[in-house]
């Protein structure tokens, strides 16, 4: 229990250090962009397949139910609302936490146990800025972009099913899909993904940066990063949905 409390306290200090690091030079803009590209390119295929599949499944599962109540025409809108508000952000965040979170934790963990981070520290190279700040910012930037990409593919997945079931045109599908979509639907969802990015980035870098006990510790850090970031993304989602409902109704 005491160990857990210590970890939580250390994590809070780590977050504080991250916010202070935003004002410290060098800002490592190029490295942040490189990390963003790395995260994006690593996740593109997985996020794309997940988005497309979810859109198709959603269309297949709900079309017969809606047809029973004579509401088949509402299917594109229903898919769009479900995907944009909830399914796109959460699926993307979970895929990224598994794919990227584990990678970040393992990479930093292995740098810690092979003393590469110490080497940066003793040469006054500010490793926190170069290794931690850049990766958290990269997650924060990449998540909204990946989510928009996943949302688009999920909508396309839904269209593929509707095309085969009802031979609906792409124009009609999208005009119907965006009927109930407004800024109040899109903006909170995008903001939510940035928060998910921050959660994944901060937990993955924290577990990696403070890895101990050699290669066994590296594996443990990667595992803990995935478990904790997935868990906190889901818990944060509940709170953020509640907050969105309070703010926007």
């Amino acid at each position: 229990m005491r160990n857990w409390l210590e970890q939580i306290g250390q994590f809070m200090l780590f977050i504080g250090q991250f916010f202070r690091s935003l004002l410290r030079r060098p800002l490592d803009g190029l490295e942040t962009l490189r990390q963003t590209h790395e995260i994006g390119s690593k996740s593109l295929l997985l996020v794309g397949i997940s988005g497309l599949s979810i859109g198709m499944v959603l269309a297949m599962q709900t079309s017969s139910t809606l047809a029973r109540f004579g509401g088949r025409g509402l299917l594109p809108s229903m898919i769009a609302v479900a995907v944009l508000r909830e399914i796109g952000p959460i699926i993307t965040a979970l895929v990224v936490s598994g794919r990227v979170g584990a990678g970040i934790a393992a990479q930093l963990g292995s740098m810690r146990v092979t003393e590469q981070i110490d080497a940066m520290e003793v040469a006054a190279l500010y490793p926190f800025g170069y290794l931690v700040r850049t990766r958290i910012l990269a997650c924060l930037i990449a998540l909204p972009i990946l989510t928009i990409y996943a949302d688009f593919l999920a909508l396309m997945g839904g269209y593929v099913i509707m095309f085969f079931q009802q031979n609906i045109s792409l124009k009609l599908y999208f005009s119907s899909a965006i009927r109930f979509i407004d800024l109040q639907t899109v903006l909170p969802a995008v903001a939510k993904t940035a928060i998910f990015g921050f959660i994944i980035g901060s937990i993955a870098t924290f577990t990696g940066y403070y890895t101990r006990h050699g290669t066994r510790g590296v594996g443990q850090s990667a595992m803990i990063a995935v478990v904790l970031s997935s868990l906190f993304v889901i818990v944060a989602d509940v709170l953020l949905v509640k907050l969105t409902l309070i703010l926007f109704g």
Partner: protein
Amino acid sequence: MIEIDQVYKAFGAQSVLNGVALRVDAGETVAILGRSGSGKSVLLKCLVGLLRPDRGTIRIDGQEVTALSAAQLDQLRRQIGYVFQNAALYDSMTVEENLAFHLTRHQSMAPDRLRQIIYEKLQTVGVEVALHKYPSELSGGMQKRVGIARALVLDPKIILYDEPTSGLDPITSREIEDLMIELKKRMGVTSLVITHSLQSARRISDRIAVLYQGQIVAFGRFDEIAQSEHPFVQEYLAAVNLEG
């Protein structure tokens, strides 16, 4: 100059340093000799602020390390080159990038000048052929040399070597020792070398400090150490003689 005075460090209930006191004069090379796990590396890490002593003072060129602000500590660290036991090269970067990273993070520099400095430093340690290779493509000896080149890249006044010859064959070990002697002659740097090899300590250092149970139990030139009556020093010398 490095002055270590009554430094204590413990990890939980395990006491590692128990009042270490040591002085290294400017331009001098001191080897710290001791058994594995005797706290030699912990002492080195305390010197550069990677670990904080529980008690005692460490002064480098008159500056009290534990009392420095983060910015002041960074300033001091720029004057110190640290050679890690396993080289600790950045494995995702080439040798050239390893050195360039240390240079460009501290100062902006024209690419030609940057390349020239890197080449010169690699040439100094005899590994210029490894310029575009990754650390994983290098032998243990070459990795150590690149580690030394990286430590030299900012022209430090002090170099700390953490077991620079451990894990190397006798011939490569001797080459690294020759390199350290050469660097001292050429650059006049102050060096502190952690080792558990008496022969190595004798060759490369002006004075030897023997660390035992967290304390310096003997300190002086090799002949002075050889005459020490401390039981551990006697045991150490006897073990070396048996090996020899």
